[in-house]
């Protein structure tokens, strides 16, 4: 670390930092964050530890970020078998099954296809799982509590173009998408979605999709639960029915309060979190703060975000940062003064369909106590009189 150089001038010059007295570092081919920001990392959780470290999730540290784009290095990961070292030269995308012309595509050929660019969030349907199932609210940051959520400018090929070249037969109603990873992760996707706005994503924030996010190509289904956006996509198998793959049979089905279950729950519900302030932070004294957070919905653009600083009795409308894009994270902001009293902060989002976030107890009432998927309940933060910000159920 740079220190302070001794004052140089005879007269009353202030001390000056030593880095202004030397030549700086040379240019470099690929930049990284400052060394002082090395703590800004994804929060890695390996629930089975060393027994199965390739099953893991790592959350975006939203409490340390301020825009709407997630830097690619901090995009959340959920791995069902680790991050494969896919060779882009060997990798192929196959389209087969109920098609006129089974086809395979290599990466170079795909570079000539028409592309679209669109900013979309991805959210694991297991995001916010601790708040769903922990009996007492866990004291952790937004990285651990809500980090399985990120926002990216994706660029790639409309899936409809590739499927049309293969020629989907009339009886082709579903597509089983398979990843090029160890477990060959597979999900069944309705053909409607693939023909509508699905993308074969090749670029993430301008550069090639990162290994963690599916290098060299992934499926992008705007608004759908993260798991369906198959990474390292290698096969689209057109079928007449869903295959009931592992994830859609168990892991990504929700147990309801009545003991039954729901399957094929694709859309991510309207949701918001206040990131500033948020749990693990300490207020730096009374006075002005800007409440800032993120809102999103799998159904379309965010229409409104309201903030309560009195535990939900009264609400004020926050400003939404333009451009408010469909199925993308939207930042909201509201000026506010903290007068030092204990305060319960909440945010409540509404989307363009009129859907509004439920309270935690409303949400819990729908599901079996064990369910931790699709938790879009309102998040409450308690500010203590000492200025500690805590995760609470309210």
């Amino acid at each position, binding site marked *: 670390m740079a220190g302070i150089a001794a004052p140089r001038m005879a007269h009353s010059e202030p001390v000056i930092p030593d880095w202004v007295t030397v030549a700086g570092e040379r240019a470099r081919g690929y930049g990284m964050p400052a060394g002082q920001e090395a703590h800004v990392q994804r929060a890695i959780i390996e629930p089975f530890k060393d027994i199965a470290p390739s099953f893991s999730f790592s959350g975006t540290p939203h409490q340390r970020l301020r825009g709407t784009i997630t830097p690619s290095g901090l995009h959340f990961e959920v791995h069902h078998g680790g991050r494969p070292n896919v060779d882009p030269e060997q990798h192929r995308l196959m389209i087969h099954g109920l098609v006129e012309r089974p*086809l395979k595509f290599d990466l170079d*050929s795909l570079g000539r296809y028409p592309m679209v660019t669109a900013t979309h969030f991805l959210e694991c349907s297991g995001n916010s799982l601790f708040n769903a199932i922990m009996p007492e609210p866990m004291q952790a940051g937004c990285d651990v509590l809500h980090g399985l959520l990120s926002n990216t400018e994706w660029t790639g090929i409309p899936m409809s173009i590739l499927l049309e070249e293969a020629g989907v037969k009339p009886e082709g109603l579903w597509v089983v998408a*398979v990843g090029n990873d160890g477990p060959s992760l597979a999900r069944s996707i309705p053909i409607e979605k693939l023909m509508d706005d699905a993308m074969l994503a090749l670029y993430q924030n301008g550069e090639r999709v990162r290994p963690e996010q599916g290098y060299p190509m992934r499926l992008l289904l705007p608004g759908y639960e993260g798991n369906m956006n198959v990474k390292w996509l290698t096969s689209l198998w057109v079928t007449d029915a869903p295959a009931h793959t592992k994830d859609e049979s168990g892991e990504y089905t929700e147990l309801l309060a009545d003991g039954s279950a729901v399957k094929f729950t694709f859309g991510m519900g309207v949701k918001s979190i206040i990131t500033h302030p948020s749990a693990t932070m300490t207020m730096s004294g009374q006075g002005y703060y800007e409440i800032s957070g993120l809102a999103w919905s799998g*159904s379309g653009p965010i229409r409104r975000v309201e903030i309560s600083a009195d535990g939900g009795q009264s609400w004020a409308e926050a400003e939404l940062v333009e451009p408010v894009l469909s199925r993308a994270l939207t930042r909201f902001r509201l000026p506010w003064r903290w007068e030092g009293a204990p305060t319960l902060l909440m945010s409540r989002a509404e989307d363009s369909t009129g859907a509004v976030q439920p309270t935690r107890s409303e949400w819990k009432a729908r599901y079996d106590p064990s369910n931790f998927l699709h938790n879009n309940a309102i998040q409450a933060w308690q500010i203590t009189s000492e200025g500690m910000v805590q995760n609470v159920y309210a």
Partner: protein
Amino acid sequence: QGPDLGQPLSEDEIPSYARYVMPDGRGLPAGGGTASEGAAVYAEKCAACHGETGIEGPVMPPVGPNDVWAKPAGRHWPYATTLFDYIRRAMPIDAPKSLSDDESYALAAFILSRNGLIGDGDAMNAETLPAVEMPNRDNFTDVWAKQGAEPW
């Protein structure tokens, strides 16, 4: 008029994991196995992660629920075919695709028999596996069919 740069894909280029065995059994290969055969493979290759009897975990227990997992595969999943396909493509997690078709049938049989859905000696194969009546099958609402992508 797109670029039309896809190359013809022939059947022998498509690996089995590019498809999925369907609930009605389409895609199941020849071969078969029983729970008794599966027990030995399970003890050797699976128990360390999923628990000696398939209940203890720590990883999601395929046989019975435990404190951290309420949806065991052998009970919650609607179709037994998924057991065969998932095990064959993905398990053990450190050596996916290392199991033979026979071993995968036997392991599915093991999990099903521990759940009391088939007998210890019942061979699971392309005919018997899809015929197993999974207890939870009719306990699902198909949300896509009901309301599309609208959240539940």
